[in-house]
Every structure is written in C-alpha cells, then in structure tokens.
C-alpha cells in the first residue's frame, strides 16, 4: 500500500460518522443484529463507519461481541 493510500485512509473520506455517543447508545442493538446475521451496517451506516475508525468504540464492540458469544 502506498504512502498516499495510507494517508488517505488515515484522513478518511468525510463519510457520515455517527460519533461515539450515538454508537455507544445503539451498540447493543447493532451487536444483536450482527449476531442474527442481519446487515447491521445497512441499517446503521454511520455506526458501522465509526466502529471501523474509532479504536475505543471498536474495542468496546469487540468486547460486547465476545461477551455475547461466551
């Protein structure tokens, strides 16, 4: 991957990002949709984008999925 691609990825494309507050408030719904095989990203695109870009929320989400799968 070139430096240009990495910088572009880092800066993002400006797509709608739900932010931490909204993501945390629907994370339980999002996680259940994912585990049920529903396309959660289609229903919550801003949340899906945020989970991919915010390490803190992404880590919480990974923890929630792990707890639900335990």
């Amino acid at each position, binding site marked *: *991957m*070139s*430096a*240009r691609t*990495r*910088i*572009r990825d*880092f*800066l*993002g*494309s*400006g*797509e*709608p*990002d*739900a*932010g*931490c*507050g909204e993501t*945390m408030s*629907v*994370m*339980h*719904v999002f*996680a*259940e949709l994912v585990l049920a095989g529903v396309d959660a990203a289609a229903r919550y695109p*801003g949340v899906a984008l945020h989970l991919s870009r*915010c*390490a*803190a*929320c992404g*880590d*919480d989400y*990974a*923890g*929630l999925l*792990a*707890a*639900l799968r*335990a």
Partner: protein
Amino acid sequence: MEVGDRAETDDWRRRLTAGGSVQRDAQEELYRMLLRVARGEVHRRSASLPFAGPELDDIAHQAAADAVIGVLRRLHEFRGESRFTTWAYTFAIFEVSTKTGRHFWQHRALSLDASGWERLPDRLGISPEEAGMAEELLGALRHAIETVLSRRQREVLLAVVVEGVPLEALAVARKTSRGALYKVLFDARRKLRGYLVTNHYLDEDDPDADGPYADREEAR
C-alpha cells in the same frame, strides 16, 4: 427479538422495580452477571494493559458495581430494542473501558514532545522506503498539521495517533469525554484532508458529506 427473549427482558424489568427482597435478589443477580462480563472483558484486554493480577480483578469488581448503578439509573430509558442482558452488558464493557483508561496514567506519563511527529509516517504504517517516495506529500501533511490545526487538535492528534494513548485514557487526563475527543480528531482529519485536496496533493474523490456529525457536540 424472540418471544422468549422478550419475556426474559420483561421479567428483569419487573423484578428490578418490584421493591423488597425480589428487587434485592434481582440486583444481586445482575451484579453477578455483570461481574462475569467485566472479568471477561479485563481478561480480553489484559495483553494491552500496563498492569496485571489483582488490579485487573479490582477493576472488574468496580466496573460491575458501577454498571449495576448505571443500569438501574437508566432502566426507564431501555426501549427493548435488544435483550435486556445485551443492553446491560454494554454498561459493564463501558465501565471497564473507562476504568482501564483511568489506570493507564498510573503507569505512564503523557508526553507531547513535538519531535514525536517524526514518527507519524511509521504510525500510519508507512515504511521508510514508501516515505522516501512520498516526501512531498508527507512534507505537505506536516505543514498542514503546523498551520491549519488548532493547538488542541495538534495535541490530541499527537497523543492518540503518534503516542498511541487510548482515547479513553486521554479523556480522563483532559477531563473530557471520549466522544468530544473523537470529534476533535474527526475535525482535525477533515481540515488536513481539505488542505491536501485544495493544494492538489490529494484528489477529492469522495463527497465531503460529514452529515449531521460535523456540527454536533459529542458528549458521553
């Protein structure tokens, strides 16, 4: 949500608001459930934490206790869009996240040395060879960081992206929320992208559709 899950959720609601011994027993059951989740979560995160052993279990206990308080305080807001237990789990997960962020500073000091910017390419996964081939672009990025970002944006970017400070830990140090800091990063990246596109270092191949997030104040 399945019918059985809905019945279980209704049962939790009923028992947690019943009063007397029924409510106390339900709270105790909730605590045990969230302690199990919190322990699993601190274990899952343990490899990336600067502490171990009894401190981890202390965090799990504190997280579970505070998660129970949070669940009870916000029970009236729960709209049944998921199982009750899934919703309750998030409180334990978020509490572990916050508490590990608080403990982060017991083992590390915040360094905001501007010379750290030299490590930016490496932190973005750019090899020395790739950096050598993109000197002009990287120079423009550094120039943009110095000239278009506010001091606060530079500091948050340096701490999170270069120094690798977890957002939750930085939120504790700055007495703010994770969401507010993420917004600072989001705005900083947007300004840097704007500079690089305006000055033809990058192409504008995506619409700048920041949407409702752009002007919203994030708080947790």
